[in-house]
C-alpha cells in the first residue's frame, strides 16, 4: 500500500480541562478526498489547525509523506505543500484579489528576498494567479480589493490562494459555510474537477457536498474518530446515525 500523504498518530490536544483531540490516529491517502464530519465542538477545526501547524499538539506525531513534521512551523509545512482555507475567511483585505493569489504564486516560485523590481508587473506571477482566479470564477474581480469582495467571493478567493500554491495536501475548513446554494454547487463542481490531483481534507457540514465528493469519510465525536470508511458504510453505521447523521439527514 502507498505511503499515506498525511499520517496522524496518537494526536492529543486539550485546552485546559477540555480534551479536543483524544488519541487520534488517521491516514490520508495520496489524492483521496477525505471528509471529516461531526457535530459542532467535535474538534474538526482544531484537527485542521494541528495538521497545518497553526497550533501544536500536546503529544503524538504528524507525518507528511513519511516525514515527521510535528515540530515544523506553519510556513515550513506550507513550503512542503500543505495549503489550507480557514473557517472564517483569511485573506489580505488591502490587497487586490489578484495580488492575494500572486503572493501565493510567489511563495511557490521563490526569490522572495528580491528587493528591487516591481512585483505587481511580473507576468510570471500574475498569469498563474489569474488562472487560479479563473478556476474559481473570480477572474472578473481580479482588481477589486479583497476586503470589498462579497462573502462567497472571499471563500472562492481563499480557494484560489490555496490552489496557486499547487499543494500536495489541501485542508479545507468548511469552504461552503455561509455561501448560497448556487455558489455551493459551483464549489462542488470545482472540487470534483480538482479531485485526484492532490489529497483533500474537507471539513464540512453540508452533507450533500460531503456525500457528493468524499472518497472516504471520518466521523469525529469528542475528539475521537467514531467511524471511518467509504461514504456508504459510514452512512449506514448505526452509531454514526445516532450521534450525528440522524439530525443532519432529518
Amino acid at each position, binding site marked *: 500500500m502507498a505511503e499515506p500523504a498525511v499520517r496522524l498518530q496518537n494526536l492529543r490536544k486539550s485546552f485546559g480541562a477540555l480534551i479536543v483531540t483524544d488519541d487520534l490516529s488517521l491516514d490520508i491517502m495520496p489524492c483521496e478526498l477525505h471528509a471529516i464530519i461531526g457535530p459542532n465542538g467535535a474538534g474538526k477545526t482544531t484537527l485542521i489547525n494541528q495538521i*497545518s501547524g*497553526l497550533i501544536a499538539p500536546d503529544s503524538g506525531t504528524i507525518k507528511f509523506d513519511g516525514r515527521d513534521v510535528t515540530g515544523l*512551523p*506553519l*510556513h*515550513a509545512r*506550507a*513550503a512542503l505543500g500543505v*495549503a*489550507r482555507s480557514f473557517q472564517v475567511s*483569511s*485573506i*489580505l*483585505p*488591502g*490587497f*487586490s484579489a*489578484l*495580488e492575494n493569489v*500572486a*503572493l*501565493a504564486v*510567489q*511563495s*511557490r516560485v521563490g*526569490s*522572495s*528576498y*528580491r*528587493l*528591487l*523590481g*516591481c*512585483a*505587481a*508587473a*511580473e*507576468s510570471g506571477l*500574475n*498569469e498563474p494567479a*489569474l488562472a487560479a482566479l479563473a478556476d474559481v470564477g473570480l477572474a472578473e474581480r*481580479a*482588481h477589486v*480589493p479583497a476586503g470589498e469582495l462579497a462573502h462567497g467571493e472571499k471563500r472562492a478567493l481563499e480557494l484560489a*490562494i490555496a490552489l496557486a*500554491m499547487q499543494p500536495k495536501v489541501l485542508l479545507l475548513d468548511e469552504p461552503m459555510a455561509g455561501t448560497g446554494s448556487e455558489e455551493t454547487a459551483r464549489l462542488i463542481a470545482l472540487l470534483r474537477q480538482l479531485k485526484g490531483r492532490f489529497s483533500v481534507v474537507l471539513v464540512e457540514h453540508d452533507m450533500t457536498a460531503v456525500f457528493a465528493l468524499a472518497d472516504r469519510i471520518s466521523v469525529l465525536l469528542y475528539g475521537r474518530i467514531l467511524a471511518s470508511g467509504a461514504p456508504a458504510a459510514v452512512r449506514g453505521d448505526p452509531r454514526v446515525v445516532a450521534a450525528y447523521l440522524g439530525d443532519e439527514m432529518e
Partner: protein
Amino acid sequence: MRASLAASLPRPRGALPATTLPAGIFLVLALLPIVALLTGGSYLVSLGSRVMIFAIAAVALDLLVGYGALISFGHAAFVGLGAYAVGILSAYGITDALISLPVALTVSAAYAFLTGVVCLRTKGVYFIMITLAFGQMAFFTASSLAPFGGDDGLTIAVRNTVAGFALLRNERAFYYVVLFCLLSTYLFCRALVGSRFGRVVRGAKENPVRVATIGFDVYRFQLATYVIAGALAGLAGFLLANATEFVSPAYMSWQRSGELIVMVLLGGLGSLDGAIIGAAAYLLTEEWLSGVTEHWKVIFGPVLVLIVLFARGGLLGLASALVRRLGRG
C-alpha cells in the same frame, strides 16, 4: 486585458498621481539653495539640510510603521549610533567618510539585527515597549561614555572629508549631498515596497497568519526590514553628526524616537512621501513656533491631536481629500 494588468493595480491610494508629488517635493528641495542665494544667508540652507536628514530617518521608520505595522519606539537609537560612529572615529583622527559612513551603517544595522532578533518575537504593545527599552539602553550607554563626553556629548572638530576632499564643509555642497542621500533612500524604499520582498512585508501587515500559511517565514522578512530601516537611520545619523559637528546622547532619547513617529503620522503613514512632508512640517513648525513663543509645545500638541483625529491620513490624506473635492468642482 493582460497589458493593463500591471498598470491598473492600485499603488498608494491617494487621489494625487503617484509620481507628481515626490517629483514636486524633490524639485522644491533642489531649488531651495538657489532661492536662499537670492535672499542671502545660509540659514535656510542649513535648516533645509536638517529637515532632509530627519526625513531620511522618517522614511526609514515609515518602512517599519507604515508598511510593516512594526511600531518601533527606538528608532532614534539607530540615528544616534550612526552619529556616534562619526564622533568616536573622529576622536581617534579618522575623519574620512569612506571609513566613517560604512562604519555608521554597519553599527546601526548590527544593533538593529541584534535587537530585532529579540523584539520581533513580540507583537503589538510589547513590541513598542521592547524597542523603547533597547533605545533607552543605547541612550544610557552613550550617556555613560565618559571618554566621549558622557552626558555632555562630543564635539567633532571638523566635518568628514570625502576621499580626502573637504566637500561637506561647504554648506551648499553639504546640502546637495544630503539631498542625494534622501533621494537615494526614497527611491530605494519605493522600489523595496513594490518588490517581491516588499509584497511579503506588506502582506504580513495585513494578515500575518495568512502570509505564514502561504509559506513565508514572516519573522525573517520583518527582521530584514528592521535591519534595513536601522541602517538607513544610521545614514541619517552620519549626516546629522556632520551637520551639527556634535553628537550627544539626546540624539538617542525616547523623545526623539517619539518625534520621528509623530513626523510619520503627521505626514501620513505608509506612503514614504508622507514621511518627508511630515518631517518638514514638524521641524518647520517647531522652528516657527519656537520663534513666536517659548511655550510652543502648548500650541503644537493640540494641533497634532487635531490632525491625528480629523485627518486620518495625515497631511497627505488631508491634501488628497482636498484635491478630490476640488476635482469634483
